[in-house]
């Protein structure tokens, strides 16, 4: 039951429901299994008695005109249908036909009406979507719901069976196997599928053409000679968008998908294009084509514009953060590669790190750059000079692309943050061993690092130092005390404490008295648990089993974080549209009553966790 409620809450509009309402829905679900090519709802037929939610498989919206079947929309897992008919209590306006076998969750009409009446956000989603569906039904085909690529995880796209073959098999055997299974790609390997191994790879029908036939190799050539290795892969939880980007970057069409390091399936270019939407996906291609700094800058602008579209489409802020990170990473990588080409190959392995909110996948607008550079301890004497020029040039170009310099000068162009690995290791260790104010401040930025370019493996060099903080009560205690210096703004009656600035009153700072509090708490829990995730939501979800927080509280912090981020992002976007500088201050009384209540509940959840942390570390301050 929990699993079904959790599934529902992953997708709009059920993500708008409080947990108890999602649970109520889950408890009344009926589950039905439909064969492929089966009409679930029929145009002009009896009205829908349920809201249908696809759990597995795909359905098409079809219209039959003059004997021709026109598919004008498709839905996949997590998406719902049947509501226009439910809301109007009339015949369906389209025929909904299963494309594959489909397992669907059916929410009975009376529960649907109840949720609609109780939860305005839930209701308004359907009202808006119903209108959207109607207009798209009138328009023509290929109107897939826009957010899908940013919400679809690769595991939902795996449609091809995984066929493996031994590395010593011949290309002819591979071709026969492809023919027999009607696939265009084989995994060259022996189970268990250790794809990180040198002896494994993939072979595609294009490889057979380009590397075997065109090269005039005999059909007895062993696969190991012509396969692609090492294999580029992504975890099953990665977003379809990330896969798309990777494929475009590497000019590949097949991507093995892994779970816990084991290949579980193959996703092709076409699988993803099938979910193609007309929106921000063209971005990566544009990045590839960009020839000048001007064009790169306009790419940055479009990422920002895409954020607005995603926000309108009801995508979760944490997913928007991932999309933006993927897009910005691609931009920075492109600039780094350009500069490497201009300067010549790097004299030693190095790593380019992004820090702070960028490192946590939480950058939603173009904010100040926070970056750093690490290079190998063993380097020729001219390496420091090379990396100085590289860092300064990259930082300069990022400024030109609309990422202002960091006011605290946390940038790779600052020699302090451009060091050999051993210096970085000593610095990180020092921050943990001597946790003074400076160290606490720095750890909040640098421990949230993420490597986005370079062949030096920073994770392996630095993360073990950070995980040493686990069990270091002094460091964690200081960190906890620093986090509690900023308590949730609630008074004794658990009401929201508002601020006044100049002639403006009823203000609340959604960053410093909002998201930042959750970020700090999540970092502490991650350090306690030795969790290597850098995103706040990931840290909360992954570290609670080994940290001083329970699962329920961790989930409540996740919800609080999502809500605070959403309110903040919406506010900033409105400011940008009005031509103002984005701020974190909102007027509490401008929020709807529902939002006010949710904000208050979020702050109460934060206060609860802060009180828990205060007890654990006996910081002598009771927050909230």
């Amino acid at each position: 039951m929990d699993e079904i409620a959790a599934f529902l809450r992953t997708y709009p509009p059920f993500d708008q429901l409080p947990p108890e309402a999602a649970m109520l829905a889950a408890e009344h679900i009926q589950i039905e299994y439909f064969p492929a090519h089966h009409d679930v709802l029929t145009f002009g037929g009896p009205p829908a008695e349920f809201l249908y939610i696809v759990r597995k498989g795909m359905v098409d919206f079809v219209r039959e005109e003059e004997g021709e079947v026109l598919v004008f929309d498709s839905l996949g897992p997590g998406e719902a249908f049947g509501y226009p008919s439910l809301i109007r209590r009339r015949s369906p306006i389209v025929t909904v036909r299963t494309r594959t076998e489909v397992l669907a969750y059916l929410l009975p009409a009376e529960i649907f009406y109840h949720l609609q009446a109780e939860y305005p956000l839930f209701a308004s989603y359907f009202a808006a979507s119903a209108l959207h569906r109607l207009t798209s039904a009138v328009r023509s085909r290929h109107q897939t719901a826009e957010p899908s690529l940013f919400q679809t995880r690769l595991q939902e796209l795996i449609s091809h069976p995984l066929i493996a073959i031994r590395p010593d098999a011949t290309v002819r055997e591979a071709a026969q196997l492809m023919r027999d299974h009607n696939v265009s790609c084989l995994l060259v390997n022996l189970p268990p599928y250790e794809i990180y191994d040198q002896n494994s790879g993939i072979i595609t029908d294009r490889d057979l053409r380009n590397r075997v036939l065109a090269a005039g190799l005999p059909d007895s050539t062993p696969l190991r000679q012509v396969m692609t290795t090492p294999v580029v892969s992504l975890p099953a939880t990665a977003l379809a968008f990330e896969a798309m980007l990777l494929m475009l970057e590497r000019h590949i069409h097949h991507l093995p998908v892994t779970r816990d390091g084991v290949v579980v399936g193959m996703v092709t270019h076409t699988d993803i294009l099938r979910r193609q939407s007309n929106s921000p996906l063209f971005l990566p291609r544009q990045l590839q084509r960009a020839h000048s700094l001007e064009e790169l800058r306009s790419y940055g602008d479009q990422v920002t514009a895409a954020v607005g579209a995603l926000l309108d489409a009801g995508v979760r802020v944490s997913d928007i953060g991932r999309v933006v990170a993927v897009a910005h990473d691609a931009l920075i990588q492109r600039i780094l590669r350009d500069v490497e080409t201009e300067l010549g190959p790097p004299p030693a392995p190095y790593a380019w790190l992004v820090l702070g909110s960028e490192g946590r996948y939480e950058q939603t607008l173009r904010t100040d750059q926070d970056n750093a550079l690490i290079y190998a301890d063993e380097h020729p004497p001219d390496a420091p000079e090379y990396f100085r020029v590289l860092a300064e040039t990259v930082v300069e170009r990022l400024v030109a692309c609309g990422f202002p310099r960091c006011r605290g000068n946390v940038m790779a162009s600052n020699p302090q943050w451009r060091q050999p690995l051993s210096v970085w290791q000593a610095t990180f260790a020092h921050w943990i061993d001597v946790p003074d104010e400076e160290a606490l401040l720095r750890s909040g930025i640098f421990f949230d690092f993420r490597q986005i370019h370079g062949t030096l493996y920073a994770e392996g060099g630095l993360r073990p130092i950070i995980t040493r903080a686990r069990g270091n009560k002094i460091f964690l205690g200081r960190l906890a005390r620093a986090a509690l210096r900023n308590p949730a703004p609630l008074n004794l009656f658990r009401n929201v404490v508002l601020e006044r600035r100049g002639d403006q009153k009823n203000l609340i700072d959604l960053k410093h008295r909002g998201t930042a509090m959750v970020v700090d708490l999540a970092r502490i829990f991650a350090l306690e648990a030795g969790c290597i995730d850098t995103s706040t939501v990931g840290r909360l979800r992954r570290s609670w089993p080994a940290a001083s927080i329970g699962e329920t509280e961790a989930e409540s912090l996740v919800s609080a974080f999502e809500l605070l981020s959403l309110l903040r992002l919406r506010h900033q976007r409105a400011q940008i549209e009005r031509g103002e500088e984005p701020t974190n201050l909102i007027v509490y009384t401008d929020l709807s009553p529902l939002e006010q209540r949710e904000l208050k509940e979020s702050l109460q959840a934060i206060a609860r966790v802060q009180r828990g942390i205060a007890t654990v570390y006996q910081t002598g301050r009771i927050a909230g």
Partner: protein
Amino acid sequence: MRLPWQRKRAVPELVRAYEVGPWPDGRSYWRDVRYVVLDVETSGLDARRDALLAVGLVEIEQARVRLDRRWYSLIRPPAGLLVEASSIRIHGLMRADLADAPPIDAVLPELLERLAQRVLVVHVARIDVGFLNQALDLSYGTRLHGPILDTARLAATLHQNAQLLGQVSRDMPVPAIQLRALAIQYNLPVYPQHDALNDALTTAQLFLAQATHLEHQGIRTLRALLRAGGVQSR
């Protein structure tokens, strides 16, 4: 077989009500039949020595799994029963969870009410049916009465059919039998395992998928389904 007057004690009305059925008609279209899909957790594998620790079930009506009619109960094992450490590892039921649970005698009446007049569906029926019969015999001197379908047997039949049609490769002589493996084979979600209710739910979805596939092969009635995957209650 024990004759009615040899029963251990007077038979409560609810047992008699259970025994008389009526049971679903074999000629019915399978989608019109009511099913109850059940899974149990036990302290071990020997029905005579080990005890039932939990039972979970969901109903299927009009070929739809009804979560609103799910039912789950822990069962307090008899005092002194040794719950094997290995089985604790599987289902995670600790003695403390079970101490406050109702004893089997308090659970059976509601269970019988829910099983009455429905086809029982179980994955690898032998174990669950053995335990239920043992409990029913001890408490009421009765046993399971209605038709029983085994999703593991249905899987075997579907596998055989697929082999006949040449849809599986020769080097896969036996079908998968684990619930999880079968669910994945049909692209069904797998709910967290080794909880009687979740496993019953996974089994129910598997059953719908299997019956839908069998219907394609011409198996439409309950009787035909029972031929494909029915088991005797004893």
